[in-house]
Every structure is written in structure tokens, then in C-alpha cells.
């Protein structure tokens, strides 16, 4: 059980404040999720450069010299910027898969949080305030982002159990609710070649989306699929390269509030998350309908 936030900026002048605004939104929901927190920030793309966000339980050991080793392994320039237990690796877009493969060999303990041209994903155990401080999220710039703060229900409180879960290049998912058929769905996805790291129901939803898209569906169609193939209570917010999407299950008990102005579209599990956004007093505030997929894109 959890709190979710999402922010999509229409007004470019707010981009330097994305991290600060999203952090404020997330911290206001700390009561809903004291166990762990995570945030995905979508920043400017440079055309042919891609990023991989990695996490290590032993960052000192694993990040030292990694850029040079990777560059050598894949034959392309690699830069690495470390932030506490996470680091962002940059390389040319065509070398991302090679870099992922090389990482597995060079640093088997390192986990990949997400990859893509725009996205960086940070998630850790701890209160939202501690997590945003650790990764200096308030200083980050971007066009849009989603965040999550977690109260673990049936699986362990671990870094990998935190949301967002990556579902594909530049795509990730956060979830508030509790699925009831995720074990069966997980087994089918494993048979279809998907890999899992946790017992978490949200990881199953994320893998479901990736799997559908790998079979040719677009994200909107994959989200429609969740309404019939996943059972339980859920509000999903997905981040994509160009925006974000929202869907609530047909029973729609888990809360969801949206606010829109000329400057942004925002999502929060509670209205409380939106109160510090600029112009919120004059925003159009509404609740998404059940069993309906919503999308905002640049």
C-alpha cells in the first residue's frame, strides 16, 4: 500500500524545478509509505546518447573504474556519474544492449534500475525525505517524472521491492493497491521467458506490460490488457519517454486525484500531494474514471 505521484510539465520554464516539485509531492505522502521510496526523472535527450541507471550494495567497490572497463568491453565512450548507491552510465544509444551485457559479466552484484534515452530511476529503502536527500533529487531537471512511496504488504522491504519498476526502454511503473492473481500471472510470464527478482505483485504488473509490448502491443493496449488480465485493486501510473499514463481498476477503491493547469498535469494518491504546486488553487482537479486509460505526452 502506497502513495504515488506524477508530474508532467507543459511549461518549459518549470523544468529546472521538476525534481524539487516532485520531491515535495512525494514527501507529503510519507505516511502512506514509510518503507521505501523511488523516483523516475525524465530529462533532456541528446539524440544519440542513452543512459543506464544502476544500483550496487557496495558502490565504492563496484563503481570504481567501471566506466573505463565498460568502455573497453563495448568499444565506445562511457561516462559514469555516481550518487550514493546509484550511478548513471552514459554511452551511445546503439551500445546500450552491449553495455547491459557487459555489466552482468563485469559487475554481477550490480542491478539495473532502468535504461533509456531520458529516464533515470532511483529507489531505496527508507522514508521519502531520506531517499530524495540521498540522491539529491531536488536539484534534478526534467520534463516529467513519477514517484512512489511504499508500505510493503505481502513482500519484503528491500531496495528491489521498491517502485518504480522498469518495464522497457524509458518506461517504468508505480502501483498503489494489491493484486490478487499475480502468482499465476508470474508463472505464465516466467514460462514466456521473463525474469523476476522479487515476490512483489507490482513487479509482475511491470513484467506483464513489458511482455505485452514485446509481443507487439503499444503501451496503451498493454494497459488496456491489465484491466482484463490482472485481478485485484490497482491504480497504475506509468512513465514513458514522452509523458505518463494512468489507469485504475474497474472497482477503483484506491484513491487517485489529478490536477491540470496551463503549466502541468499532476497526479497524486491524495490531494495533499498537490497542495504546493504552483497555481493549484485555480487548477482543474478531478478523479480519473475506473477502467479507463489516460495519457499525456509531449
Amino acid at each position, binding site marked *: 500500500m502506497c502513495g504515488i505521484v506524477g508530474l508532467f510539465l507543459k511549461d518549459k520554464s518549470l523544468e529546472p524545478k521538476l525534481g524539487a516539485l516532485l520531491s515535495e509531492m512525494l514527501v507529503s505522502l510519507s505516511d502512506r509509505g514509510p518503507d521505501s521510496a523511488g523516483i523516475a526523472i525524465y530529462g533532456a535527450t541528446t539524440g544519440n546518447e542513452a543512459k543506464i541507471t544502476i544500483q550496487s550494495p557496495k558502490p565504492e567497490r563496484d563503481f570504481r573504474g567501471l566506466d573505463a572497463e565498460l568502455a573497453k568491453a563495448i568499444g565506445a565512450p562511457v561516462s559514469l556519474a555516481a550518487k550514493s548507491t546509484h550511478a548513471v552510465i552514459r554511452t551511445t544509444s546503439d551500445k546500450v544492449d552491449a553495455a547491459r551485457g557487459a555489466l552482468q559479466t563485469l559487475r554481477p552484484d550490480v542491478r539495473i534500475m532502468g535504461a533509456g534515452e531520458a529516464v533515470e530511476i532511483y529507489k531505496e529503502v527508507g522514508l521519502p525525505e531520506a531517499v530524495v536527500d540521498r540522491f539529491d533529487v531536488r536539484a534534478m531537471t526534467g520534463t516529467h517524472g513519477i514517484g512512489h512511496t511504499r508500505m510493503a504488504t505481502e513482500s519484503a522491504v528491500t531496495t528491489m521491492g521498491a517502485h518504480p519498476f522498469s518495464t522497457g526502454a524509458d518506461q517504468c511503473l508505480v502501483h498503489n493497491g494489491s493484486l490478487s492473481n499475480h502468482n499465476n500471472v508470474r508463472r505464465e510470464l516466467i514460462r514466456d521467458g521473463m525474469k523476476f527478482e522479487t515476490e512483489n505483485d507490482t513487479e509482475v504488473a511491470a513484467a506483464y506490460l513489458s511482455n505485452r509490448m514485446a509481443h507487439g502491443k503499444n503501451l496503451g493496449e498493454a494497459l488496456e490488457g491489465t484491466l482484463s488480465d490482472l485481478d485485484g485493486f490497482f491504480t497504475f501510473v506509468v512513465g514513458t519517454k514522452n509523458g505518463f499514463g494512468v489507469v485504475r481498476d474497474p472497482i477503483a477503491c484506491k*484513491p487517485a486525484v489529478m490536477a491540470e493547469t496551463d503549466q502541468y498535469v499532476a497526479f497524486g494518491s491524495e*490531494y495533499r500531494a498537490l497542495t504546493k504546486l504552483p497555481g493549484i488553487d485555480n487548477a482543474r*482537479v478531478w478523479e480519473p474514471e*475506473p477502467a479507463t486509460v489516460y495519457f499525456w505526452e509531449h
Partner: protein
Amino acid sequence: MPATTMPKAQSDQSHARVFDLAEHSLRELNQALHKLTPGSNETAWEVLHPRGSHSVAVGVDQPVSIDVRGSVGYYCAGMNDGATITVHGSAGPGVGENMMSGQIIIKGDASQYAGATGKGGLLVIEGNASSRCGISMKGIDIVVHGNIGHMSAFMAQSGNLVVLGDAGDALGDSIYEARLFVRGKVESLGADCIAKEMRPEHIALLQGLLDKAGVTGVKASEFKRYGSARTLYNFNIDNADAY
């Protein structure tokens, strides 16, 4: 027990007790309200900067008037018994839940479960209400100027729900004896909920509710009435699908 004459929701600004939630805690506000005794002269309160806080002005049991300047979170005015509480903004889930008597006015929108399990009093929502409006209601009167969401009046036992706008799916599912009046369209009706005849007594009742809620510009005759078909009142295997 429904209140007959209620104080209008306007406070005498110059004598109002002002409570700023940016300076003081929620606990202080609610405890101060609970310390009121009959005959107290602190009959008007202003609550500033609620900023989406939960449980604002809950469990009030004196006939004071409270103006909340801003939007609130969950359960605002929960279990209200006699106060007149106006939210100059929107309300989160469960506004006025289990209200016993009194009046609550939401100037903006209300989220899910508005008026849930309310026993009495009047809840007026000037904007829209979300899903499950009036769920399990037990005597409260709810008047919504805008629309209401899906599964509204679920298992509604008694009281009246008046909607000037539209209603979402599964209206009045498993309803007992509550009365529903909808002026707009109803997306779909829930189990055992059917359209019913509007007889003169219903027109009169509805007009009374509209007057009490200060609604003008519409006529009672423009509404349709919905209520229980009463086929689920005693277990019968042929109705198994509805359970």
C-alpha cells in the same frame, strides 16, 4: 434525527475564533472544538490553511458554524453532530462520514465515499461527487449540484440522495429503503435498484430538500426517482447471481 431549522452558513467574521493549521496542530483544533459546551459563545470558527489535511473538524457535537478556508483531505467533518461546516474548497474521501445531524457544505468537489454511512443531517456538494457517494447511508440527506460517480448509494439503507447532474455505473446496488432522485442521466442501475414512480408526496419531499439545500433554477418534476425493488430482502436461491 433530521434538523429542521439550521443556521445559515455564514459566520460573523468579527467574532469568529480563527484557527490557523499552518501554526497549530490538527489535534489542537479538534480538541478545542470538543471542549465546546452548550451555551458557549464561541459559535463561529474559521479554519485557515487546511492544505489537504485529514480529519478536519471531526466529532463536533455543538451547533457552531465552522468555515474551512481551503481544501481538505479525508474524513472532514466525520461524525458531525449538529455543527454547520462549510469547506471553501474541495474535500477528500469520506467527507461527512457517519454524520449524525447538522449541515455540511462543500463549495468545490467531493472525492469518494461522500456522506458514507451518514445517519442524519444534510450534506450539500456544490461541485461533483466521486464514486460511492452515499454508500451505506442510514438517514442522511445528500444533495449534489453536479455529477456523482460509480457505485453510488451502494447498500443505501435510508435517507435521500438528490443529484442534479448525472450518475455513474451501478447506482443503488443492493439498496434498502433510501430514496434516490436524479435529474441527469444514470449510466446504469445496480442490483435490485429500479426506477420508481414520482408521486405527489415524492415531489413535495424533493422540493423540500432542494429548498433546504438552497437549490434554485430546477424543478422537482425534472427528476426521476430510483429505489429498491425489494427482491433481495429475503434469501431466495433464484436471486443468487445478485449476491
